[in-house]
């Protein structure tokens, strides 16, 4: 069995004497980097199809597996949204849909997109692929646990999708699953549907915890020589902080899910008050439905930032690379990410203004909510100042970045509306809320994902995606998304309630009908445009322009691997040694407009560079 391993610990245990690039060992030498603290990682190399591609312990393969499965689930979420839009825009064409179907689709669309698509894609997909590469590690610290994490996610998705085929169908309680309605008759899927949903969430949390421990320990304990925390790319900071949030927020979801399952299966009364069902008094009494709302939103609000923080991090790196400029205010960006993460645990009840609470509570949560706007706005200013007088390459990646900034500002501003109790109460449960959260945590992070796909595809596959198709994809998505969500703000202001299957003869119906049709058409087009990307990926995998090494002339370590795409173990014989932050672009006096993180100071002594 021993031939499966790198039993080269003695050779690879790096001391400054044996490894070049780390200076001579004298502390006066400007190139000096401390010797390695831990022996090189011992990796299990797969040698069959099963161990190489299915039950693989290589974080890069696991990342791609997460990416593909999350995308597959996301496409199901997309199809569900099409069906919803068909019903809302053209109810006469959607004769096959009942109100029950509609609620089930709303619920599954929400849950899939937030948890099984965005969270899994950012943390499982980008996290697995990028953290070890960007930190200069050979792999995640616990590769076996990491592999199990993906397969737990796989089972969670299978259980979730199985709920489409059980009697009663999937749950239709809305993605917030509020009891008592989620588990009593009259709500679609209140039998097996809700049980499978809770089970799937519990499995997801268990699987995520395994992955999350890997991401955290890899960042904290397995960086390469010279890689200080303040030299990490912001992508790693974003994913790292989001993982911390997830480790502390998912417990509340787990507990809420378990307690609700017990209410359903065993008839406990954790969340259930005395209640009538079809004229009959049920056996429940004395429980608190609001308790579930607190548990859910203690998870649910940090969840928003679990999706947003990796997006913030990734976008910072993309902008810096494609504007050929260092990120403005790197440390401010790091502290903003950490600050947003910490604050996100003190705002959850702003989702519950209409549930009824002490007015001082509403005041407290409104204040904390608005305080989050401060670090967030700092980030937006810094992105814009990074672009300011940069050498902008207006390629597809940059287009997505610009699209993200605009969309995010847009969604953020409506967030300030909704954070205030007095404004929120009339707007609550209208299309304004839908417009807000789709802009800020749906479309904006999605644009980052798209930008990141165009940016890192050359690393994963060795080939570029087609720029021409990419531009079509971007403009359809960007303009289309605005056509969908901009009118929804108006619908919200005139009071159109969300989660309604049909408007019937409501007074606002005349002006809303045409708009609903328009939104639906836009939604069909935007959804279809996403298949341009899938086509682009499939074609470019075989016929794309070869990218070679470091095609974007980037500094961070993932572009400086021994082979492209990187092999298992990432960096060949010797791990890289880091001498600087990853944002030395367009440094005056330097030969090229980028200085990779591995370049020692003696090689760039003549440039006007500050020590980072």
């Amino acid at each position, binding site marked *: *069995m021993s031939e*499966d*391993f790198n039993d080269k610990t003695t050779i690879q245990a790096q*001391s*400054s004497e044996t490894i070049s690039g780390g200076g001579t060992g004298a502390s006066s030498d400007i190139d000096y*980097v*401390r*010797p*390695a*603290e*831990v022996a090189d990682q*011992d990796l*299990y190399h797969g040698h069959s199809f099963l161990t190489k591609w299915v039950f693989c312990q290589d974080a890069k393969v696991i990342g791609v597996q997460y990416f593909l499965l999350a995308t597959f689930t996301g496409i199901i979420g997309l199809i569900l949204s099409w069906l919803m839009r068909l019903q809302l825009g053209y109810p006469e064409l959607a004769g096959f849909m009942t109100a029950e179907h509609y609620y089930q689709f709303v619920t599954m669309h929400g849950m899939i997109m937030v948890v099984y698509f965005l969270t899994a894609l950012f943390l499982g997909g980008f996290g697995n692929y990028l953290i070890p590469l960007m930190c200069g590690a050979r792999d995640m*610290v*616990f590769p*076996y*646990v990491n592999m199990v994490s993906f397969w737990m996610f796989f089972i969670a998705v299978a259980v979730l999708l199985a709920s489409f085929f059980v009697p009663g169908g999937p749950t239709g309680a809305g993605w917030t699953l509020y009891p008592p309605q989620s588990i009593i008759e009259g709500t679609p899927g209140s039998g097996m549907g809700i049980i499978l949903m809770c089970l799937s969430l519990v499995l997801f949390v268990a699987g995520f*915890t395994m992955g*999350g*421990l890997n991401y*955290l*320990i890899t960042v*904290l*304990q*397995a*960086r*390469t*020589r*010279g*890689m*200080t*925390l*303040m*030299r990490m790319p912001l992508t790693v900071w974003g994913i790292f902080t989001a993982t911390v949030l997830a*480790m*502390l927020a*998912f*417990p*509340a979801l*787990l*507990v*809420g899910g*378990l*307690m609700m399952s*017990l209410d359903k299966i*065993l*008839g*406990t*009364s*954790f969340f259930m008050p005395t209640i009538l069902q079809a004229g009959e008094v049920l*056996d429940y*009494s*004395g*429980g*608190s439905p609001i*308790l579930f709302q607190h*548990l859910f939103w*203690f998870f649910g609000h940090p969840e928003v930032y679990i999706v947003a923080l990796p997006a913030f991090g990734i976008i910072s790196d993309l902008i810096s690379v494609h504007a050929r400029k260092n990120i403005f205010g790197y440390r401010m960006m790091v502290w903003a990410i950490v600050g947003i993460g910490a604050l996100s645990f003190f705002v959850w009840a702003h989702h519950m203004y209409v549930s009824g609470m002490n007015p001082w509570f509403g005041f407290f949560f409104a204040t904390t909510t608005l305080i989050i706007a401060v670090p967030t706005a700092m980030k937006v200013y810094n992105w814009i100042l990074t672009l300011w007088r940069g050498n902008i390459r207006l390629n597809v990646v940059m287009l997505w970045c610009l699209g993200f900034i605009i969309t995010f500002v847009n969604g953020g501003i409506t967030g300030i509306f909704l954070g205030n109790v007095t404004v929120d109460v009339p707007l609550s449960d209208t299309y304004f809320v839908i417009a807000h959260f789709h802009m800020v945590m749906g479309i904006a992070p999605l644009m980052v994902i798209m930008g990141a796909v165009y940016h890192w595809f050359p690393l994963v596959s060795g080939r570029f995606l087609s720029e021409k198709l990419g531009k079509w994809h971007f403009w359809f998505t960007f303009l289309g998304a605005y056509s969908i969500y901009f009118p929804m703000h108006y619908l919200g202001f005139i009071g159109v309630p969300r989660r309604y299957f049909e408007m019937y003869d409501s007074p606002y119906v005349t002006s809303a009908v045409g708009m609903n049709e328009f939104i639906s058409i836009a939604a069909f087009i935007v959804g279809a445009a996403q298949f341009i990307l899938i086509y682009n990926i499939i074609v470019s995998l075989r016929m794309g322009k070869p990218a070679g090494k470091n095609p974007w002339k980037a500094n961070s370590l993932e572009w400086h691997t021994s082979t492209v795409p990187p092999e298992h173990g990432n960096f060949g014989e010797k791990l890289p040694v*880091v001498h600087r932050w990853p944002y030395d672009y367009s440094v005056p006096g330097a030969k090229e407009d980028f200085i990779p993180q591995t370049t020692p100071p003696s090689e760039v002594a003549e440039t006007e560079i500050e020590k980072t």
Partner: protein
Amino acid sequence: MADPKIEGYEFKPGYKGMAADAGSDQTLFKGVHWGKAMMWIFLLSDTFIFSCFLISYMKGRGSTPVEWPNPSEVFALHVGGVPVPLLLIAIMTFVLITSSGTMALAVKYGYERNRKMCGWLILATALGGLTFVGMQAFEWSKLIHEGVRPWENPFGAKQFGSFFFMITGFHGTHVSIGVIFLCIYAYKTFAGHYDEGKRGWFTTMKGDYVEIEILGLYWHFVDLVWVFIFAFFYLW
């Protein structure tokens, strides 16, 4: 504990040392094994799970319309016809805390490479855990026999049964998982896997006595959580 020796790195005392460690490259927790750091962070996450359970319990107990049963009556054992409150639970707690002691000794003997003592102490810890779970099963069956169910409770608020079975059940699951791992580790210790650095069955990583310390962290955590559950259910 003395700082580990790291070539080229100078440890500083106090908060300046912490800041220096955080600002340095490679590792934040100097000289700490990856697995140990992982267990600490896992336990932090697990703390949040138990906190959510216990906070829900406080909320449920505080707002139930029916009176909460008196714990010193419900949990009392009858010894010779006289009800003795807290008797069983005192023994259970004593056994579990003692098993923490044997676990700590097992870690010590492990690092001293005293294979036999280490193995026996792990087995003693497992035995303590098993006794605890056994007594918990006894208490459960006593309550069930008296008519307490997750969905009903003859002594008062029905949430009493719900929270009691759920939270002690969740904790008991933790103890049982711990016992299973203790048995596996005891086998590995006796078989010398940690001395030879034999690779694990699943993880294929080389065995090391640090694994016992990592399991020990989990075990002490489970004991600590029990102290909280004990206080909230039996003393409140």
